[in-house]
């Protein structure tokens, strides 16, 4: 079983959301159990007029399921070597940027700099260059970081299940992998060369991670590549499919919007703040227990305001450059919009009545 046939169908069948009426939206907001067609209604242009009631429901659901808490994490870029040609990314192989990969000593120094801010959840990132940053290298990084971070997730190239299992044994408990776009034709255009061209292999990655024992599997689409409504619909159905098939795994989504970066590619569509709020609240109403991450790609004031509408995780104190925590930043993967420190994010959360959660998991294997 795979989500592939469904994804291909979703990616190629327009949703025709212009036929949705205001009444359809009103009904969808109040349904006790929101199905796929009600979810689509919440993503329709007609829903724009009902954004306030969507926000109210999303807030109530978030409050009752997650309380006034937001988990904080930060990404650690250990390598920016990449064999792919993704047209929207600053790390793409054709871009002439300085390439580097941290030595284990540098990884430790980065880890210590991050741990000093109080963060206990880490997201380890690489580009896609398995020959440089292979599984053994990642395993070694995890071993170095494990004493500092009770929870480590990876956002690396798609692997086979056995490799993920190796990482989970080393202490990795979360996997992030974005499909970028669910539209297979656009996907082929945006990934002209490199291993990432394989749409199906990438699409089945979250599933392989779940089978390998990851506790958290985070998916998403890069918003801006094509019609966001269509993409969020696919992300939501993919998340629901994963939740159903892997009930023991915490399924999370991220809603990254495209940011300016070193390449020349510019977004095909601009997702407005209002539209991002619609996307997030629709997802929350559709899947009340879904973890939702909002990254530092977003501006501070927007992050602060969208907080009560469904957010459960935030990145903080971010540098997207390799080795950017211990030393001053070099060229990052993309520009961040929220440069606030961990302490500043914590203070912001506190002032809004929210609590920053630094630690929310610890591998039992390692400690008992």
């Amino acid at each position, binding site marked *: 079983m795979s989500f592939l046939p469904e994804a291909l169908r979703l990616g190629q069948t327009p949703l025709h959301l212009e036929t949705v009426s205001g009444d359809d939206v009103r009904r969808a907001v109040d349904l006790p159990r929101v199905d796929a067609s009600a979810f689509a209604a919440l993503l329709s242009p007609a829903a724009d007029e009902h954004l306030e009631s969507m926000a109210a429901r999303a807030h109530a659901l978030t409050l009752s399921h997650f309380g006034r808490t937001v988990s904080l994490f930060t990404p650690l870029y250990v390598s920016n070597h990449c064999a792919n040609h993704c047209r929207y990314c600053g790390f793409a192989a054709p871009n002439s940027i300085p390439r580097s990969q941290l030595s284990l000593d540098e990884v430790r120094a980065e880890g210590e700099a991050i741990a000093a801010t109080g963060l206990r959840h880490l997201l380890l990132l690489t580009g896609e260059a398995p020959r440089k940053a292979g599984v053994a290298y990642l395993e070694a990084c995890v071993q170095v970081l494990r004493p500092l971070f009770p929870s480590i997730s990876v956002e690396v190239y798609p692997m086979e299940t056995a490799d993920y299992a190796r990482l989970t044994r080393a202490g990795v408990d979360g996997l992030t992998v974005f499909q970028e776009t669910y539209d297979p034709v656009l996907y082929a255009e945006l990934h002209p060369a490199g291993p990432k061209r394989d749409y199906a292999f990438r699409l089945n990655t979250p599933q392989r991670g779940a089978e390998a024992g990851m506790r958290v599997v985070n998916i998403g689409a890069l918003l801006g590549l094509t019609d966001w409504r269509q993409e969020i619909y696919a992300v939501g159905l993919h998340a629901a499919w994963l939740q159903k098939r892997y009930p023991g795994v915490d399924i999370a989504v991220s809603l990254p919007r495209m940011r300016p970066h070193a390449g020349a590619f510019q977004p095909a569509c601009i997702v407005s703040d209002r539209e991002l709020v619609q996307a997030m609240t629709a997802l929350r109403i559709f899947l009340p227990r879904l973890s939702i991450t909002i990254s530092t790609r977003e501006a501070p004031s927007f992050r602060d305001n969208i907080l009560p509408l469904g957010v459960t995780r935030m990145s903080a104190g971010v540098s997207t450059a390799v080795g950017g925590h211990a030393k001053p930043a070099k060229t990052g993967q993309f520009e961040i919009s929220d440069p606030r420190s961990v302490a500043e994010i914590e203070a912001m959360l506190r002032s809004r009545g929210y609590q920053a959660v630094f630690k929310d998991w610890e591998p039992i294997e390692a*400690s008992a």
Partner: protein
Amino acid sequence: MEHTDIFEIGGKRLSSRLFTGTGKYGNDELIAPVCEASGSEVITVALRRVDLDGKTDNVMKHIPTHMTLLPNTSGARNADEAVRIARLARAMGCGDWIKIEVISDNRYLLPDGYETAKATETLAREGFVVLPYMNPDLYVARSLADAGAAAIMPLGAPIGTNRGLRTEEMIRILIEEMELPIIVDAGIGAPSQACRAMEMGAAACLVNTAIATAADPVLMGRAFGRAVTAGREAWLAGPGAVATLAQASSPLTGFLDRTEGAS
């Protein structure tokens, strides 16, 4: 009123039958005033959230020292993981009480009865005071009792839903059939619902979300404390039997007495 109604469990005597939690607060500094306002003496804490050597704020330091800690195994997906978390809690100095939560369904967070019973058996043998969180099912309750549970914690509704006593009939059966204390856990969203559970004869209620996410958690804590006391007193007072039909002042069978009297 004097506290003559003491709840004894795991060798501890409690004068409050409201258990509270530490999750979901916007600010952990509210925990101490909520404990005080509610009168609660038992508080559950997710071990996964405790970072004893972290430089950041640690939830444990906000828990008043007179409280009995009820660490929970939140995050455990099977018996084996729950057992390891429990042992870790004890090693960390959290005491012998443990609330078993074995959940491998992240959509509804429903507890796995079979794995819960397995974990209960192992931990009870190791001397823990085991309080398992469960679906209100009589057979699971019996296996938990056989496994050595100190009390049983059935859910009123799925965690975090504030939907109230959706499982009322099943909980009533547990109260009637089981000798162990029944502590209603999860789903209670309003003081009236906690009061209702106590009126039915529950031994205690655990309330977290409804207090932690209230606009004024301290006031809500106090309301729950009072509701639980009111419900308990109603139960102790022995409510009059509920009649299904109105009792006519001239009963239809009244003639029988008269006939007998006349003979």
